[in-house]
């Protein structure tokens, strides 16, 4: 799968994929910031998570800096997705899933039972591994979230849909076929549609759960460029199993292992100068 993707990737990306992530991070030339000096959008303290009796997260502490892209990396099954699924409490769809601890969004503990879930999810958008276009037209897909939260006249709705599609870098490709089913779009277009749909409701925090793992490299490049632009208006948390991707697009990287947060720092630091032995072993490909 990975090999096939590499083979068809555009040249500069192809070299980036074969390159060690440390070089990718170094070449971006971003000055490393210390995450603890920045204002935190999300403050996680002592977060534990259980699937039934199996504990999946252990004492997670992390401060997600506002208006930055934070990547979460780690081997499969290490709790990356589980961790971000707490931020919008989507795990509550399943009765055996349970979270304990505190997750503060702008100072408010969202795990408190008094939190209005609908209000929370309006503020915290989520993009999934596989694109999830709703079985309706492109227009209605974007309008779905808008209609949930805003009562606006049709003309304004149309403006907002157009705006969301533009910010999702999809407008040029779908402007003349808004009435066609969203399921007819390509995988990469569907994923950008999902990003546009999430953006349309004006969230503050965007959670992306391996958004590129089911789409081809060219589409991946487009989505990475899109993430680049999102940083200006949103706080982004990106779960990825692709270290080069983390090195390319993120400002900060957290390394998860077996449900523990092993290390969290500026992305360049993580990839060029990891403090923990396990982080180093993972990013140099010694396991994972």
């Amino acid at each position: 799968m990975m090999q096939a993707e590499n083979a068809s990737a555009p040249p500069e990306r192809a070299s980036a994929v074969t390159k060690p992530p440390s070089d990718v991070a170094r070449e971006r030339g971003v000055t490393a910031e210390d995450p603890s000096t920045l204002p935190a959008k999300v403050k996680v303290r002592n977060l534990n998570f259980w699937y039934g009796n199996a504990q999946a997260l252990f004492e997670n502490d992390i401060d997600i800096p506002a208006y930055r892209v934070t990547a979460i990396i780690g081997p499969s099954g290490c709790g990356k997705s589980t961790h971000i699924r707490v931020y919008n409490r989507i795990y509550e769809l399943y009765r055996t899933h349970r979270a304990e601890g505190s997750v503060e969004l702008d100072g408010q503990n969202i795990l408190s039972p008094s939190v209005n879930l609908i209000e929370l999810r309006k503020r915290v958008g989520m993009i999934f591994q596989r694109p999830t276009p709703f079985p309706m037209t492109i227009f209605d897909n974007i309008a779905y979230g808008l209609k949930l939260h805003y009562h606006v006249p049709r003309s304004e709705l149309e403006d907002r849909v157009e705006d969301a599609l533009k910010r999702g870098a999809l407008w040029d490709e779908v402007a003349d076929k808004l009435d066609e089913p969203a399921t007819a779009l390509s995988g990469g277009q569907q994923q950008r549609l999902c990003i546009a749909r999430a953006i349309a409701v004006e969230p503050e925090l965007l959670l992306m759960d391996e958004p590129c793992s089911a789409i081809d490299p060219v589409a991946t490049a487009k989505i990475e460029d899109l993430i680049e632009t999102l940083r200006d208006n949103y706080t982004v948390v990106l779960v990825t199993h692709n270290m080069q991707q983390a090195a390319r697009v993120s400002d900060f990287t957290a390394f998860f292992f077996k449900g523990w947060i092993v290390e969290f720092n500026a992305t360049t630091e993580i990839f060029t100068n990891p403090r923990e032995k396990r982080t180093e072993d993972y990013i140099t490909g010694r396991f994972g």
Partner: protein
Amino acid sequence: MVPAALLGIAVLAWILWEVIARGSAALTPAFFTQAPTPPGVEGGGLANAIVGTLVLTAIATGIGTPIGVLAGVFLAEFGTKSRIATAVRFTTNLLMGTPSIIIGIFVYALLVLPVGHFSGWAGAVALAIIIIPVVLRTTEDMLSLVPDELRESALALGAPRWRATLGVVFRAAKTGLVTGVLLAVARVSGETAPLLFTALNSYYWPETINEPTANLTVTIFNYAMSPYADWQEKAWGASLLITVGVLFVGVLSRFVLDRRKKTSWQT
């Protein structure tokens, strides 16, 4: 294996052939427009029974579909593995396997004996009881096919659970749900046993369904056993009509399912 398959097809073809050969002569315009004549008098038709069957099936579908769909939604979306859902699933399987004549007797005791006469209502209720488990099971199955990510996507946008279910999950499973109802309709439109003790039959137009109500299947039962050649021929005609009707609904549901493959969320 191949001979067995051929034998199966051959039996089906034979049934179709017999029904067409013996029944097509009875399907005159009068068959569709007139009520029956007294025995021995030539002419007349089974228009009253055709209307009766349509009315009974429609009412049964109207009662059975909402109950079946709601229960199916409960099992697929909310109850899933709870104790009550397990109990409902088990009961549904039993109900599906219950001989339809037993459902007829049950409704007889429930709705016919207390009022002292047969009625179309009782017949429709008996058919509805047959429809419920069929619709319930297909609803649950079709909703279970909708991937969890689609539910999560709707909820993650801030949709309340009911809006996610109605606006997104139902839409994704729409054609499957329609197919389930069509299959249930096809199933009951050929039922005789549950109507024998409930709607019974009538030689008159179904002006009210508070009385015994004419229907095709019990008419076939009565006419086929009668000594009159004319009635026997009409029984064959009614058989052909039901066969074609059930076949039509079956093909329609296949058509709907085929379309699903082209437009569904799962690509």
